[in-house]
């Protein structure tokens, strides 16, 4: 028996062989890593849900914590990116569920329902984001004014506060929340839910002043002199007119006004045949509100269902509840009908060439006019921004505050976000915009080089989206999910209580467990266990690959259930 | 008994009645009296309640014969009702004893008739004796120890003292009531016809 210089043990013949197969030296001399032409590396990918979430929520890691029953940690992680989880958990059109890889094996994970579950839990428990910036560095407590308390303003204030600033939110209405409070019916978002979310902001030191209106009670100049920076985050504050004769008749209602009055518990008397004109969420909300107030609602839309901008599930729920939609019809004029009521004169439309929005342009069909007798008409064609409240040099066109990609307006230290800045979109989009504005304020006031926020990169994930075809399906089985249940249509048309029912904790944990955790290393140890050369070792932060011994066989990549390990050409 | 002579016994019982233990008690007792012994159960699967048998082979020299017992010198029957379903006299040698656990003094009179043949019959009401001594339960008395006592009396192969010593070794708990039962059976056994000393001597030489 001889020990070679490299540590190997060799035998000269039968005499010095042991009686059994046994080792006399470590196999460490054998640097199997020299054989490889490929090498593995750990790299988290962007989960598909995450790739489309405008709020930038770290959905997969929130799921992991819910699954583990660690609700507080889950809530804290969600609050890192989303100041209003109970709100988005109800009203977000959940684009995240559309590309969910779980879809192929039992249906997409009900991410929105889980967000609602977690947001409500956090609100109930009074969870505050952590750490609360008590010392106030690095924003150093400098004061920032935020105009508007809709989702964009709330988001900007939240992230400013977390960056160490002292934001004050100015709201023209008597109560905070903007569109969330006045524009979304209670059956989708009860005010109590919103109140708890805003309480959380107050809890970390965001100040609110209500009943004060820019352009009336104070001017931009006042704010700019009193605060280190100003963030304009007001929303749509003017309803578009129909532009047809008779639109101001008695019995013709403004849609936003109708929703606000209903939400405030002081709805107008609305009954009989109600025609709602429009195809967006406001139109659908108005129709469903009219229905709940005792009316018989019909939506008039000039294109077809395919072009309707309202959320698909809202349309479906409306139809379930018995709302009729008259497609390819546009109002021409309104007139008072003898004996009460309104004659609504309409014209048939046909779809023509696509317009600048990409949708087919509706064209009136000559001679197709018809008249409907109704008791009320609701105008819900869309809203615009009244720019009269800001100086002229801040206006861009008819409907937008002018700002660049860093959200700077032409006035120093004045920033803009939300609907007024053209971020026309969902609550999640407003949250993103608010975060961007806060980020821009911070980099300007702290004189830091500006880089656009990139949550995916900050989490260490690559921009590549994790695809199901790269997963090892042996580790997953078909599993049906919970479908968040809805109250029956017959019951919900009678009141303003919430349509969708909440998940219980057990349900939520089971549903979160269905999440594949796409492209995200969950420390399952498969790479460590399967490596035939024991080249993958566990560390406090994850795994380390000993490239001296990794021979590039790719077993770890093959056995990674969720594509968090990849192969590249070895150097 | 010549050194190369063998004496073979067969015990009939039902699974659970203790036929095997009866054979072991006889073996222990015989071993104490200087015999070489070999005992074994019927080879195979035992089922509670089913007819079973156990065997013993005795001699004055080491026993090398390891075949089954085909022609026993004596037979012990732990339950007289077995006589109806099992041929308890199969292979039984002429002049051999059949010791029956039976209530009647004359085994011929009570519905469990024995085939006529050149053997001798002894009976003992072991069931009653065992019950009186609290051996087993009152509904299912265990008769193997009492029958061993009766066997000593009938065959005179081993002494009742050796039987009692063997019982003491094999049965830890309740040995004394079993011993009392064995002694009672030793005294109570009745034979038909009574063996003569000459006959016994002819048998055992």
């Amino acid at each position: 028996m001889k020990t070679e210089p490299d540590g190997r043990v060799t035998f000269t013949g039968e005499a010095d062989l042991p009686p059994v197969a046994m080792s006399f030296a470590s196999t460490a001399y054998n640097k199997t890593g020299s054989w490889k032409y490929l090498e593995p590396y750990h790299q988290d990918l962007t989960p598909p849900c995450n790739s489309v979430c405008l709020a930038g929520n770290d959905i997969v890691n929130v799921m992991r914590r819910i699954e583990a029953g660690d609700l507080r940690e889950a809530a804290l992680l969600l609050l890192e990116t989303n100041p209003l989880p109970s709100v988005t958990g109800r009203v977000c059109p959940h684009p995240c569920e559309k590309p969910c890889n779980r879809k192929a094996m039992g249906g997409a994970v009900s991410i929105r329902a889980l967000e609602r579950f977690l947001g409500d839990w956090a609100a109930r428990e009074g969870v505050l984001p952590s750490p609360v910036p008590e010392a106030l560095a690095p924003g150093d407590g400098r004061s920032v004014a935020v105009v508007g308390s809709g989702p964009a303003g709330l988001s900007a204030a939240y992230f400013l506060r977390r960056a160490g600033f002292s934001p004050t939110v100015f709201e023209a209405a008597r109560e905070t929340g903007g569109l969330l409070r006045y524009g979304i019916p209670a059956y989708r978002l009860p005010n109590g839910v919103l109140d708890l979310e805003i309480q959380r902001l107050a809890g970390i030191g965001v100040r609110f002043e209500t009943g004060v209106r820019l352009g009336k009670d104070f001017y931009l100049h006042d704010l700019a002199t009193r605060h280190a920076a100003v963030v304009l985050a007001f929303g749509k504050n003017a309803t578009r007119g129909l532009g047809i004769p008779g639109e101001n008749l008695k019995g013709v209602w403004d849609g936003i006004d109708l929703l606000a009055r209903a939400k405030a518990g002081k709805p107008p008397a609305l009954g009989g045949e109600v025609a709602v004109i429009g195809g967006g969420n406001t139109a659908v909300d108005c129709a469903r509100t009219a229905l709940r107030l005792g009316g018989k609602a019909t939506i008039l839309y000039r294109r077809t269902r395919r072009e309707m901008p309202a959320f698909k599930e809202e349309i479906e729920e409306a139809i379930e509840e018995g709302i009729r939609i008259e497609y390819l019809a546009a109002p021409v004029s309104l007139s008072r009908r003898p004996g009460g009521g309104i004659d609504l004169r309409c014209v048939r439309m046909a779809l023509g060439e696509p317009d600048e929005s990409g949708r087919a342009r509706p064209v009136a069909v000559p001679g197709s006019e018809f008249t409907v007798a109704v008791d009320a008409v609701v105008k819900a064609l869309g809203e615009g921004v009244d720019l009269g409240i800001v100086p002229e040099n801040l206006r861009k066109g008819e409907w937008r505050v002018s700002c660049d990609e860093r959200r700077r307006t032409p006035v120093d230290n004045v920033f803009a976000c939300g609907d007024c800045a053209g971020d026309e979109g969902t609550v999640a989009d407003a949250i993103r915009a608010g975060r961007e504005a806060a980020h821009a304020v911070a980099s300007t006031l702290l004189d830091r080089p500006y880089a656009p926020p990139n949550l995916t990169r900050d989490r260490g994930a690559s921009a590549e989206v994790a695809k199901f075809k790269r997963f090892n399906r042996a580790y997953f089985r078909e599993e049906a999910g919970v479908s968040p249940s809805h109250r029956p249509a017959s019951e919900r048309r009678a009141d303003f209580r919430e349509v969708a029912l909440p998940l219980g904790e057990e349900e939520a944990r089971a549903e979160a467990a269905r999440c594949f955790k796409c492209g995200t290393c969950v420390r399952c140890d498969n790479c460590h266990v399967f490596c035939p050369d024991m080249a993958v070792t566990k560390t406090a932060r994850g795994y380390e690959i000993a490239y001296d011994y990794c021979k590039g066989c790719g077993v770890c990549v093959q056995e990674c259930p969720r594509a968090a390990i990849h192969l590249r050409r070895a150097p | 008994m010549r050194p190369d002579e063998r004496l073979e016994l067969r015990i009939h019982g039902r699974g659970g009645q203790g036929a095997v233990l009866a054979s072991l008690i006889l073996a222990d007792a015989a071993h104490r009296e200087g015999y070489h012994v070999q005992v074994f159960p019927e080879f195979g699967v035992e089922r509670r309640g089913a007819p079973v048998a156990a065997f013993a082979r005795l001699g004055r020299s080491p026993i090398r014969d390891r075949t089954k017992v085909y022609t026993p010198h004596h037979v012990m029957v732990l339950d007289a009702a077995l006589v109806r379903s099992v041929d308890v006299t199969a292979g039984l040698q002429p002049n051999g004893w059949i010791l029956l656990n039976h209530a009647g003094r004359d085994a011929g009179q009570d519905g469990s008739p024995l085939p006529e043949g050149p053997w001798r019959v002894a009976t003992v009401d072991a069931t009653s004796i065992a019950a009186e001594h609290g051996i087993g339960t009152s509904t299912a008395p265990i008769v193997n120890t009492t029958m061993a006592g009766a066997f000593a009396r009938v065959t005179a192969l081993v002494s009742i003292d050796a039987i009692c010593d063997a019982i003491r070794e094999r049965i830890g708990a309740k040995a004394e009531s079993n011993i009392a039962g064995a002694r009672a059976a030793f005294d109570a056994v009745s034979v038909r016809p009574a063996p003569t000393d000459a006959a016994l001597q002819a048998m055992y030489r």
Partner: protein
Amino acid sequence: MTAPQAAAREGSAAASTRILTGNQAAAYGAYLSQVQVVSAYPITPQTTVIETLAELYRDAPWPSRFVNVESEHSAMAACIGASMAGARAFTATSSQGLALMHELLHWASAQRLPLVMVNVNRALAPGWNIWTDQNDSLSQRDTGWMQLYCESNQEALDTVIQAYRVAEQVQIPIMVVLDAFVLSHTAEAVSLPSPEMVRAFLPPRDPPFRLDVEEPHAFGGLLTPDHYQEVRAKLHRGMEDAIPIWGEAERSWEAFTGRAYDAVVPYRTEDAEMVLVASATVASTARDVIDALRARGKKVGLLRVRLFRPTPHDALRLALRGIPRVAVIDRNISYGHHGIFFQEIKSALYDLPARERPGMFGYVTGLGGRDVTRGVILDAVGRTLSRDRAEPETVWIGRKE
């Protein structure tokens, strides 16, 4: 605690004699060898071996474990693990259970682990049969285990103890084989050696290598064509060495107890014109037959083969050279060939000079528990003596025509 248990535990210097079944005797053999790990799975007719051990090990006074498992395969695996760690380990099985162990039997021998296993010879299914024949153990002929076939309960006890001594000297596992029922369930007088005596005969195990965190080795790894043959040659040589070492163990045991058995046991073979070869309990009954024939002036003898593996070639040749007729009774069969003892012995004698080479007669009988009576044995003798030459085909005796 029964009296023999108490005697075995108390360590009274004097040997005590008890009426024990073969299975109980084998279990006492393991207990008196101070086995540290017992792992076994019950199977008729082996069950009472482990029942007895379970009772004995309930509070054995030395560090020990009785490992319950869910199969014979696991039982052998547990014994291998225990033995690798340096413990003295024991198991027992029978028939289908032994067949299930087959793969691991190779592991135990090629890893040179001195296990001792009692196998109660039982016929293999199908048709279920719980009675004795030797096909189960002989099917394991080439697994590298030594095999010894016992003919009495005393021998079963003694052989287990002897087996540990030899196994630990040559690092080869040993199978001690008992006939189902004929030994396993038959009670006879057995002399229990005192624990002191057994300790003096059998020193504590001192393995040349073992699993040891202080001195780590990887065992059972890759053994390439470069080395495999050499390592296997060592196992073969270990088997050959075991024959004289077994002899030494017999002499030592004889000095302690007055009892010896040896690898092959001749009986009245002097001047014999015909020698009957048999193993296990058939050999025991055959002695009575030989005595009866000798009494009638027939020049016949018996050779009992106790050690089947390693094959005691020299002893077989010495015992049978120049005997005109040798008749082997096999309670087993290698289908399509012959009885297995027959072919082994024939092979061992082939190298004898032609004039000393016996005429070989082979008889198969007693399969599946069929009683091998004196009549059957007499038939083998009669057929052999009445023919000048062996019948070429396998001859069945004691078979219903």
